[in-house]
């Protein structure tokens, strides 16, 4: 009960932070219209079998939701910098409740980013059966798990000043190999991309439309990264708490 209240306050203060809105919500939305609006009549993008507005909807959704998840790192680093993390450590708040609040808040931001892009896509004529929407959203939610862990890990390792560039840099690099900006279907980028979890975020729409899901490879990559990054986050958190 009490930890739910804590999560509620975390949500409230996160959604009042205007700076994060610009990066996590505004930026992907503007880019989406810039890319997709003039090309809304391309119905089969580079042999992917899906329309350009739909392809870039998930591309930019992956970008926005990754940013949203990793913004947890920015908030955690900020709390550490002002000494709030130490203050929390002298209250009965459990580690589990603390981390749950961070993950729930990150997912709430990601959900908002996703909803905005879905609406934007609908205005450009994207329409899918309800089951496909749901399946795609579910895959995206699972695909974001590694990034929840990564955000927490970075927040407990980096300073406020370095979380911004680190998050931006990581997301930008991942976006290229994952096909956010242009479809990656073969060659070097494809070989690399298939091994990063964000590739499978971007592919969530394509695989859902074709009724395929991720296949073994996708699930294995996402699960593997989730385990690795969650372990890293646990280590970073423990090391940070020991030192505080």
């Amino acid at each position, binding site marked *: 009960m*009490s930890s739910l*209240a804590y999560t509620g306050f975390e949500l*409230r203060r*996160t959604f009042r*932070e205007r700076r994060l809105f610009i990066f996590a919500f505004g930026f992907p939305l503007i880019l989406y219209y810039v890319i997709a609006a003039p090309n809304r009549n391309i119905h089969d993008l580079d042999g992917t079998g899906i329309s350009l507005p739909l392809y870039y909807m998930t591309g930019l959704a992956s970008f926005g939701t990754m940013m949203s998840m990793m913004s947890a790192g920015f908030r955690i680093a900020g709390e550490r910098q*002002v000494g709030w993390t130490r*203050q929390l450590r002298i209250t*009965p*708040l459990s580690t589990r409740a603390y981390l749950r609040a961070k993950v729930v808040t990150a997912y709430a931001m990601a959900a908002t980013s996703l909803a905005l892009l879905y609406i934007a896509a609908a205005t450009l004529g994207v329409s899918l059966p309800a089951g496909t929407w749901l399946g795609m959203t579910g895959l995206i939610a699972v695909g974001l798990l590694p990034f929840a862990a990564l955000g927490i890990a970075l927040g407990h390792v980096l300073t406020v000043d370095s979380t911004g560039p680190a998050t931006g840099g990581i997301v930008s690099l991942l976006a290229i190999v994952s096909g956010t900006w242009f479809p990656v279907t073969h060659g070097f980028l494809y070989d690399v991309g298939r091994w990063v979890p964000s590739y499978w975020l971007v592919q969530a729409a394509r695989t859902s439309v074709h009724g395929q899901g991720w296949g073994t490879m996708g699930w294995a990559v996402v699960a593997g990264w989730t385990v690795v990054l969650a372990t890293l986050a646990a280590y970073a958190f423990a090391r940070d708490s020991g030192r505080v």
Partner: protein
Amino acid sequence: MIVPNGRLGAVSEPFALSGDAPAIELRELEKSWRGPAGPVRAVRGIDVSVRRGETVALLGPNGAGKSTTIDMILGLVRPDAGSVSVLGGPPRAAVHAGLIGAMLQTGALIRNLSVRELVAMAASLYPRPLAVDEVLERVGLADIAGQRTQKLSGGETQRVRFAIALVGDPQLLILDEPTVALDVEGRRAFWQAMRHLASEGRTLLFATHYLDEADANADRVVLLARGTVVADGATTEIKGRVGTRTIRATLPGVDVAALTALAGVHSADRHGEAVSLICDDSDRAIRALLARYDEARDIEIAGAGLEDAFLRLTVDAQEDG
């Protein structure tokens, strides 16, 4: 245990890890930090026991080991040697049970919440919190309860931190240099609130480097210097051991040697027209000063500078050893 039940609810339920154990028990506590020039021994063998209901000042200059000791009492730092027991158990158990409230030396507030929301957020973490509005009233935040935390002054921020330490209805309240950012009125209000908390049967431990604050607000003073306890006793007792006072006055064209020779004066110093006399017996010194120099103006008598007191007490401690 019968305690006066004040407006804040106070220690109405006797809830503790072990009923009769001291509030704080430190045994041969040691902690070193890694410094650029080898290990720095911040705390070198501290033994202190604080009874329930006591108000204790942890007094010492910067670097005496006050904050490190407090961090170990709160379980934020693990001692290298020795033991810490809080309310009869390990520090973290007392923290998890919500029995401790603390205000650390440094720390700002998180942004984008109102004062009331932030205190309510802190309250939500404790099993038996006090009413948020009553706490805000008590620490003088009622008027700015709706303001965002990033728009507060230093003194207001400090009061919010005090409210956060208090809102969990702790049995043991630990405050590290609580009045640093407060103005005179803020300090007065703060100590008034503290006395009320003490009257409710809570145990209070505060660190300070102001002798006057310790004197006026604590039952007992633990003096720390260079990581050891150099004195531990009632405030009157410690004052007797420290003893010195300083007289300052405007007195043009006077010889320092003549001032030093006055009855009750330990040493004298002059900067232009301003003179300052460090006195063993300020009552005799002021009479002697005025008898000899009735032109002396702007006279002030102040308590001992803590640095002086420390020099004396540490020297005494070394001689005793």
